[in-house]
Protein backbone atom coordinates (compact mmCIF):
# COMPACT_ATOMS: atom_id res chain seq x y z
CA UNK A 1 0.00 0.00 0.00
CA UNK A 2 1.45 3.38 -0.96
CA UNK A 3 1.66 6.40 1.26
CA UNK A 4 -1.26 8.19 -0.39
CA UNK A 5 -3.64 5.30 0.36
CA UNK A 6 -2.54 5.15 4.01
CA UNK A 7 -2.97 8.92 4.36
CA UNK A 8 -6.35 8.77 2.66
CA UNK A 9 -7.57 6.06 5.04
CA UNK A 10 -6.41 8.05 8.08
CA UNK A 11 -8.07 11.22 6.76
CA UNK A 12 -11.32 9.39 6.02
CA UNK A 13 -11.34 7.95 9.56
CA UNK A 14 -10.96 11.52 10.84
CA UNK A 15 -13.85 12.62 8.60
CA UNK A 16 -16.05 9.81 9.91
CA UNK A 17 -15.24 10.76 13.52
CA UNK A 18 -16.09 14.39 12.73
CA UNK A 19 -19.43 13.46 11.19
CA UNK A 20 -20.40 11.21 14.12
CA UNK A 21 -19.46 14.01 16.52
CA UNK A 22 -21.45 16.56 14.51
CA UNK A 23 -24.60 14.43 14.56
CA UNK A 24 -24.32 13.57 18.26
CA UNK A 25 -23.55 17.09 19.48
CA UNK A 26 -26.51 19.23 20.47
CA UNK A 27 -24.85 22.45 21.65
CA UNK A 28 -24.80 24.92 18.76
CA UNK A 29 -21.44 26.53 19.46
CA UNK A 30 -19.82 23.12 19.78
CA UNK A 31 -21.38 22.04 16.48
CA UNK A 32 -19.90 25.12 14.85
CA UNK A 33 -16.44 24.21 16.13
CA UNK A 34 -16.86 20.60 14.99
CA UNK A 35 -17.89 21.81 11.52
CA UNK A 36 -14.70 23.87 11.43
CA UNK A 37 -12.74 20.72 12.31
CA UNK A 38 -14.43 19.10 9.34
CA UNK A 39 -13.18 21.89 7.10
CA UNK A 40 -9.66 21.16 8.30
CA UNK A 41 -10.03 17.49 7.35
CA UNK A 42 -11.19 18.60 3.87
CA UNK A 43 -7.94 20.56 3.62
CA UNK A 44 -6.07 17.43 4.71
CA UNK A 45 -7.66 15.51 1.82
CA UNK A 46 -6.40 18.18 -0.60
CA UNK A 47 -2.96 18.36 1.03
CA UNK A 48 -2.46 14.59 0.62
CA UNK A 49 -1.92 15.11 -3.12
CA UNK A 50 1.34 16.85 -2.15
CA UNK A 51 2.01 18.76 -5.37
CA UNK A 52 2.27 22.46 -6.20
CA UNK A 53 -1.29 22.30 -7.50
CA UNK A 54 -2.49 21.01 -4.13
CA UNK A 55 -0.81 23.99 -2.50
CA UNK A 56 -2.68 26.29 -4.86
CA UNK A 57 -5.98 24.56 -4.08
CA UNK A 58 -5.58 24.76 -0.29
CA UNK A 59 -5.74 28.56 -0.18
CA UNK A 60 -9.20 28.89 -1.81
CA UNK A 61 -10.41 25.96 0.29
CA UNK A 62 -9.18 27.67 3.44
CA UNK A 63 -10.78 30.98 2.42
CA UNK A 64 -14.15 29.31 1.81
CA UNK A 65 -13.94 27.57 5.18
CA UNK A 66 -13.02 30.73 7.08
CA UNK A 67 -15.72 32.80 5.39
CA UNK A 68 -18.35 30.21 6.26
CA UNK A 69 -17.11 30.14 9.85
CA UNK A 70 -17.27 33.95 10.08
CA UNK A 71 -20.74 34.09 8.56
CA UNK A 72 -22.08 31.44 10.92
CA UNK A 73 -20.48 33.05 13.97
CA UNK A 74 -22.18 36.32 13.02
CA UNK A 75 -25.51 34.53 12.62
CA UNK A 76 -25.03 32.94 16.05
CA UNK A 77 -24.16 36.28 17.69
CA UNK A 78 -27.22 37.99 16.20
CA UNK A 79 -29.49 35.11 17.10
CA UNK A 80 -28.35 34.97 20.72
CA UNK A 81 -28.27 38.79 21.07
CA UNK A 82 -24.61 38.69 22.04
CA UNK A 83 -23.82 42.08 20.48
CA UNK A 84 -23.39 44.10 23.65
CA UNK A 85 -19.88 45.53 24.16
CA UNK A 86 -17.57 44.00 26.73
CA UNK A 87 -17.91 45.79 30.08
CA UNK A 88 -14.47 45.20 31.55
CA UNK A 89 -11.74 45.00 28.91
CA UNK A 90 -8.67 42.92 29.61
CA UNK A 91 -6.03 45.06 31.42
CA UNK A 92 -2.68 44.04 32.88
CA UNK A 93 0.25 46.30 33.60
CA UNK A 94 2.66 44.83 31.06
CA UNK A 95 0.27 45.82 28.30
CA UNK A 96 0.83 49.51 29.18
CA UNK A 97 4.62 49.45 28.91
CA UNK A 98 5.83 46.59 26.74
CA UNK A 99 3.95 47.04 23.42
CA UNK A 100 5.94 49.98 22.08
CA UNK A 101 9.37 48.37 22.15
CA UNK A 102 8.21 44.88 21.09
CA UNK A 103 6.12 46.32 18.28
CA UNK A 104 9.06 48.44 17.10
CA UNK A 105 11.37 45.39 17.01
CA UNK A 106 8.81 43.25 15.16
CA UNK A 107 7.96 45.97 12.63
CA UNK A 108 11.65 46.65 11.89
CA UNK A 109 12.35 42.95 11.48
CA UNK A 110 9.27 42.65 9.24
CA UNK A 111 10.49 45.47 7.00
CA UNK A 112 13.86 43.69 6.70
CA UNK A 113 12.10 40.45 5.70
CA UNK A 114 9.64 42.26 3.37
CA UNK A 115 6.99 40.51 1.32
CA UNK A 116 4.20 38.39 2.77
CA UNK A 117 6.27 36.94 5.62
CA UNK A 118 7.50 40.39 6.59
CA UNK A 119 3.94 41.67 6.51
CA UNK A 120 2.87 38.92 8.86
CA UNK A 121 5.73 39.63 11.31
CA UNK A 122 5.18 43.40 11.24
CA UNK A 123 1.44 42.84 11.50
CA UNK A 124 1.92 40.76 14.65
CA UNK A 125 3.83 43.66 16.16
CA UNK A 126 1.09 46.10 15.20
CA UNK A 127 -1.62 43.81 16.65
CA UNK A 128 0.26 43.70 19.93
CA UNK A 129 0.69 47.50 19.96
CA UNK A 130 -2.96 48.25 19.24
CA UNK A 131 -4.15 45.65 21.75
CA UNK A 132 -2.05 47.28 24.44
CA UNK A 133 -3.03 50.86 23.66
CA UNK A 134 -6.32 52.67 24.03
CA UNK A 135 -8.72 52.63 21.15
CA UNK A 136 -7.98 55.89 19.32
CA UNK A 137 -6.76 54.71 15.92
CA UNK A 138 -7.83 56.14 12.61
CA UNK A 139 -9.42 53.14 10.91
CA UNK A 140 -10.04 55.03 7.69
CA UNK A 141 -6.34 55.88 7.31
CA UNK A 142 -5.21 52.29 7.88
CA UNK A 143 -7.80 51.05 5.40
CA UNK A 144 -6.67 53.62 2.83
CA UNK A 145 -3.03 52.61 3.16
CA UNK A 146 -4.03 48.98 2.73
CA UNK A 147 -6.10 49.79 -0.36
CA UNK A 148 -3.33 51.77 -2.07
CA UNK A 149 -0.81 49.04 -1.22
CA UNK A 150 -3.05 46.44 -2.82
CA UNK A 151 -3.34 48.59 -5.96
CA UNK A 152 0.48 48.86 -6.12
CA UNK A 153 0.73 45.10 -5.80
CA UNK A 154 -1.55 44.69 -8.83
CA UNK A 155 0.48 47.32 -10.73
CA UNK A 156 3.58 45.19 -10.05
CA UNK A 157 1.86 42.20 -11.64
CA UNK A 158 1.02 44.26 -14.72
CA UNK A 159 4.69 45.27 -14.97
CA UNK A 160 5.63 41.58 -14.90
CA UNK A 161 3.26 40.88 -17.76
CA UNK A 162 3.64 44.00 -19.95
CA UNK A 163 7.29 45.09 -19.50
CA UNK A 164 9.18 42.09 -18.09
CA UNK A 165 12.54 43.95 -18.47
CA UNK A 166 11.73 45.96 -15.33
CA UNK A 167 11.20 42.81 -13.24
CA UNK A 168 13.46 44.00 -10.42
CA UNK A 169 11.42 47.17 -9.91
CA UNK A 170 8.24 45.07 -9.97
CA UNK A 171 9.63 42.65 -7.38
CA UNK A 172 10.52 45.53 -5.06
CA UNK A 173 7.13 47.16 -5.62
CA UNK A 174 5.23 43.93 -4.95
CA UNK A 175 7.34 43.11 -1.88
CA UNK A 176 6.86 46.54 -0.34
CA UNK A 177 3.18 46.74 -1.20
CA UNK A 178 2.30 43.31 0.17
CA UNK A 179 4.25 44.20 3.32
CA UNK A 180 2.14 47.32 3.83
CA UNK A 181 -1.10 45.58 2.94
CA UNK A 182 -0.68 42.56 5.22
CA UNK A 183 0.58 44.77 8.06
CA UNK A 184 -2.38 47.14 7.76
CA UNK A 185 -4.94 44.35 7.54
CA UNK A 186 -3.48 42.44 10.47
CA UNK A 187 -3.17 45.55 12.62
CA UNK A 188 -6.92 46.05 12.26
CA UNK A 189 -7.41 42.78 14.17
CA UNK A 190 -5.66 44.33 17.18
CA UNK A 191 -8.17 47.17 17.27
CA UNK A 192 -11.19 44.91 17.62
CA UNK A 193 -12.44 45.04 21.15
CA UNK A 194 -16.06 44.20 20.68
CA UNK A 195 -17.39 47.72 20.06
CA UNK A 196 -20.17 48.43 17.64
CA UNK A 197 -19.58 47.09 14.10
CA UNK A 198 -16.32 45.30 14.86
Amino acid at each position, binding site marked *: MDEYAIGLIVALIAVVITFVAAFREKNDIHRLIIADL*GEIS*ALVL*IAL*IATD*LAEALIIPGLVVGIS*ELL*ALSEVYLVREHLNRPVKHPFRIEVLDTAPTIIAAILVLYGIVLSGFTGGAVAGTGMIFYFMGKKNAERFALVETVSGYAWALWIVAFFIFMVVPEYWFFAVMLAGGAILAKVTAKMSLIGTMRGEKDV
Partner: protein
Amino acid sequence: MFELASSNIGGQELFVLPFGDIVDYFTPYTGALFLFALIFTLICIFSKPEKSMDIVFGTDAIYAKGVTGKDLHFRRFMAIACGIATMGAVTSGDVFNFTLFVSMVGICIIGITASVKNRQVLHTAFNYGIITMLATIPLFGGAAITLAATGTLSIWELSAIAPAMPWIAKALILVGVMGEGMAPFYVAKAELTRAPGAPYVLMIHVSSLLMFLRVVEIILTV
Protein backbone atom coordinates in the same frame (compact mmCIF):
# COMPACT_ATOMS: atom_id res chain seq x y z
CA MET B 1 -33.50 -0.53 -30.46
CA PHE B 2 -32.84 2.86 -29.06
CA GLU B 3 -29.78 4.61 -30.38
CA LEU B 4 -28.96 8.09 -29.12
CA ALA B 5 -27.74 10.43 -31.82
CA SER B 6 -24.85 11.65 -29.71
CA SER B 7 -23.13 10.21 -26.71
CA ASN B 8 -22.24 13.73 -25.67
CA ILE B 9 -24.51 14.73 -22.78
CA GLY B 10 -24.39 18.48 -23.07
CA GLY B 11 -24.27 18.67 -26.90
CA GLN B 12 -21.61 20.36 -29.00
CA GLU B 13 -19.70 23.18 -27.38
CA LEU B 14 -20.86 26.58 -28.56
CA PHE B 15 -18.29 28.89 -27.02
CA VAL B 16 -14.99 28.32 -25.25
CA LEU B 17 -13.17 30.82 -23.04
CA PRO B 18 -9.70 29.58 -22.09
CA PHE B 19 -7.89 31.23 -19.17
CA GLY B 20 -4.67 29.27 -19.44
CA ASP B 21 -5.59 25.73 -18.48
CA ILE B 22 -8.88 26.78 -16.88
CA VAL B 23 -11.39 26.55 -19.71
CA ASP B 24 -14.91 27.88 -19.29
CA TYR B 25 -17.32 26.61 -21.92
CA PHE B 26 -20.91 26.67 -23.03
CA THR B 27 -22.78 23.74 -24.47
CA PRO B 28 -26.50 24.03 -25.31
CA TYR B 29 -27.16 22.45 -21.90
CA THR B 30 -24.95 24.67 -19.77
CA GLY B 31 -25.83 27.65 -21.95
CA ALA B 32 -29.48 27.14 -21.10
CA LEU B 33 -28.61 26.89 -17.39
CA PHE B 34 -26.50 30.05 -17.67
CA LEU B 35 -29.35 31.98 -19.32
CA PHE B 36 -31.73 30.80 -16.61
CA ALA B 37 -29.35 32.03 -13.87
CA LEU B 38 -28.80 35.31 -15.74
CA ILE B 39 -32.55 35.98 -16.09
CA PHE B 40 -33.17 35.39 -12.41
CA THR B 41 -30.20 37.58 -11.45
CA LEU B 42 -31.64 40.36 -13.60
CA ILE B 43 -35.02 39.88 -11.91
CA CYS B 44 -33.29 40.28 -8.53
CA ILE B 45 -31.53 43.44 -9.74
CA PHE B 46 -34.53 45.19 -11.23
CA SER B 47 -37.62 44.01 -9.39
CA LYS B 48 -38.98 45.64 -6.29
CA PRO B 49 -39.33 43.36 -3.27
CA GLU B 50 -42.77 41.99 -2.63
CA LYS B 51 -44.73 43.33 0.32
CA SER B 52 -46.46 40.74 2.38
CA MET B 53 -49.76 41.51 4.11
CA ASP B 54 -50.69 40.38 7.59
CA ILE B 55 -54.23 40.40 8.82
CA VAL B 56 -54.69 41.31 12.46
CA PHE B 57 -56.68 38.47 13.91
CA GLY B 58 -60.29 39.20 14.70
CA THR B 59 -60.41 42.60 13.01
CA ASP B 60 -60.48 44.05 9.52
CA ALA B 61 -57.05 45.66 9.93
CA ILE B 62 -54.22 44.74 7.55
CA TYR B 63 -50.63 45.80 7.82
CA ALA B 64 -47.94 45.54 5.17
CA LYS B 65 -44.38 44.43 5.88
CA GLY B 66 -41.81 45.88 3.50
CA VAL B 67 -38.05 45.60 3.05
CA THR B 68 -36.32 48.96 3.05
CA GLY B 69 -32.96 50.66 3.45
CA LYS B 70 -29.88 48.75 4.49
CA ASP B 71 -31.70 45.44 4.80
CA LEU B 72 -32.92 45.71 1.19
CA HIS B 73 -29.45 46.51 -0.10
CA PHE B 74 -27.88 43.61 1.74
CA ARG B 75 -30.43 41.06 0.57
CA ARG B 76 -30.28 42.30 -3.00
CA PHE B 77 -26.47 42.18 -2.96
CA MET B 78 -26.49 38.65 -1.58
CA ALA B 79 -29.03 37.50 -4.17
CA ILE B 80 -26.95 39.01 -7.01
CA ALA B 81 -23.77 37.42 -5.65
CA CYS B 82 -25.62 34.11 -5.45
CA GLY B 83 -26.67 34.49 -9.09
CA ILE B 84 -23.12 35.26 -10.21
CA ALA B 85 -21.76 32.28 -8.27
CA THR B 86 -24.39 30.07 -9.90
CA MET B 87 -23.40 31.36 -13.34
CA GLY B 88 -19.78 30.54 -12.50
CA ALA B 89 -20.74 27.04 -11.36
CA VAL B 90 -22.67 26.19 -14.52
CA THR B 91 -19.98 27.44 -16.94
CA SER B 92 -16.88 26.23 -15.09
CA GLY B 93 -14.75 23.69 -16.93
CA ASP B 94 -12.74 22.63 -13.91
CA VAL B 95 -13.93 20.29 -11.18
CA PHE B 96 -12.28 22.22 -8.35
CA ASN B 97 -13.61 25.56 -9.59
CA PHE B 98 -17.05 23.99 -9.73
CA THR B 99 -16.79 22.88 -6.09
CA LEU B 100 -15.57 26.34 -5.07
CA PHE B 101 -18.48 28.04 -6.84
CA VAL B 102 -20.89 25.62 -5.19
CA SER B 103 -19.49 26.52 -1.76
CA MET B 104 -19.81 30.21 -2.69
CA VAL B 105 -23.48 29.62 -3.52
CA GLY B 106 -23.84 28.03 -0.08
CA ILE B 107 -22.33 31.09 1.64
CA CYS B 108 -24.58 33.44 -0.35
CA ILE B 109 -27.65 31.41 0.61
CA ILE B 110 -26.65 31.72 4.28
CA GLY B 111 -26.42 35.48 3.67
CA ILE B 112 -29.86 35.70 2.05
CA THR B 113 -31.45 33.66 4.82
CA ALA B 114 -29.65 35.33 7.70
CA SER B 115 -30.63 38.86 6.64
CA VAL B 116 -34.09 38.30 8.09
CA LYS B 117 -33.91 39.38 11.72
CA ASN B 118 -36.12 36.68 13.12
CA ARG B 119 -34.99 34.15 15.67
CA GLN B 120 -36.45 31.15 13.91
CA VAL B 121 -35.06 32.16 10.55
CA LEU B 122 -31.62 32.72 12.08
CA HIS B 123 -31.85 29.32 13.75
CA THR B 124 -32.56 27.74 10.37
CA ALA B 125 -29.75 29.69 8.72
CA PHE B 126 -27.36 28.45 11.38
CA ASN B 127 -28.38 24.82 10.94
CA TYR B 128 -28.16 25.09 7.17
CA GLY B 129 -24.73 26.67 7.58
CA ILE B 130 -23.50 23.71 9.64
CA ILE B 131 -24.64 21.38 6.84
CA THR B 132 -22.88 23.63 4.31
CA MET B 133 -19.63 23.49 6.22
CA LEU B 134 -19.80 19.72 6.56
CA ALA B 135 -20.71 19.39 2.86
CA THR B 136 -17.44 21.04 1.83
CA ILE B 137 -15.61 17.90 3.06
CA PRO B 138 -17.09 15.56 0.41
CA LEU B 139 -16.97 18.35 -2.20
CA PHE B 140 -13.26 19.13 -1.82
CA GLY B 141 -12.52 15.50 -0.99
CA GLY B 142 -14.07 14.37 -4.25
CA ALA B 143 -12.13 16.95 -6.23
CA ALA B 144 -8.89 16.01 -4.44
CA ILE B 145 -9.38 12.27 -5.06
CA THR B 146 -10.04 13.02 -8.74
CA LEU B 147 -6.82 14.98 -8.96
CA ALA B 148 -4.86 12.24 -7.20
CA ALA B 149 -6.31 9.47 -9.38
CA THR B 150 -6.18 11.11 -12.79
CA GLY B 151 -3.66 13.94 -12.46
CA THR B 152 -6.02 16.55 -13.84
CA LEU B 153 -9.09 18.52 -12.82
CA SER B 154 -10.12 19.80 -16.23
CA ILE B 155 -13.49 18.43 -17.35
CA TRP B 156 -12.23 18.47 -20.95
CA GLU B 157 -9.26 16.27 -20.14
CA LEU B 158 -11.38 14.00 -17.96
CA SER B 159 -14.06 13.55 -20.61
CA ALA B 160 -11.39 12.68 -23.21
CA ILE B 161 -10.17 9.77 -21.07
CA ALA B 162 -13.60 8.85 -19.66
CA PRO B 163 -14.51 6.94 -17.58
CA ALA B 164 -11.53 8.21 -15.64
CA MET B 165 -12.98 9.73 -12.51
CA PRO B 166 -13.22 7.15 -9.70
CA TRP B 167 -16.80 6.38 -8.77
CA ILE B 168 -16.06 7.27 -5.13
CA ALA B 169 -15.06 10.80 -6.21
CA LYS B 170 -18.27 11.15 -8.22
CA ALA B 171 -20.31 9.96 -5.26
CA LEU B 172 -18.52 12.36 -2.90
CA ILE B 173 -19.10 15.34 -5.19
CA LEU B 174 -22.77 14.41 -5.55
CA VAL B 175 -23.14 14.16 -1.76
CA GLY B 176 -21.41 17.51 -1.37
CA VAL B 177 -23.72 19.24 -3.84
CA MET B 178 -26.70 17.65 -2.09
CA GLY B 179 -25.50 19.14 1.19
CA GLU B 180 -25.01 22.60 -0.29
CA GLY B 181 -28.22 22.46 -2.29
CA MET B 182 -30.35 21.47 0.68
CA ALA B 183 -31.34 25.09 1.29
CA PRO B 184 -34.90 24.91 -0.10
CA PHE B 185 -35.80 22.31 2.53
CA TYR B 186 -34.57 24.60 5.27
CA VAL B 187 -36.30 27.57 3.68
CA ALA B 188 -39.58 25.69 3.66
CA LYS B 189 -39.06 24.99 7.36
CA ALA B 190 -38.30 28.60 8.21
CA GLU B 191 -40.60 31.55 8.50
CA LEU B 192 -38.65 32.91 5.56
CA THR B 193 -41.31 32.17 2.97
CA ARG B 194 -43.68 34.41 4.94
CA ALA B 195 -41.09 37.15 5.41
CA PRO B 196 -41.17 40.02 2.91
CA GLY B 197 -38.88 40.19 -0.10
CA ALA B 198 -39.93 37.44 -2.49
CA PRO B 199 -37.46 37.65 -5.43
CA TYR B 200 -34.47 37.17 -3.15
CA VAL B 201 -35.85 34.00 -1.62
CA LEU B 202 -36.47 32.74 -5.14
CA MET B 203 -32.74 32.89 -5.84
CA ILE B 204 -32.14 30.17 -3.23
CA HIS B 205 -34.37 27.74 -5.10
CA VAL B 206 -33.00 28.67 -8.52
CA SER B 207 -29.34 28.30 -7.57
CA SER B 208 -29.95 25.00 -5.80
CA LEU B 209 -31.82 23.58 -8.82
CA LEU B 210 -29.15 24.74 -11.29
CA MET B 211 -26.36 23.22 -9.17
CA PHE B 212 -28.10 19.85 -9.23
CA LEU B 213 -28.61 19.99 -12.99
CA ARG B 214 -24.98 20.89 -13.55
CA VAL B 215 -23.53 18.22 -11.26
CA VAL B 216 -25.55 15.56 -13.09
CA GLU B 217 -24.01 16.74 -16.37
CA ILE B 218 -20.49 16.65 -14.89
CA ILE B 219 -20.93 13.18 -13.42
CA LEU B 220 -22.29 11.77 -16.70
CA THR B 221 -19.59 13.44 -18.79
CA VAL B 222 -16.42 12.51 -16.91
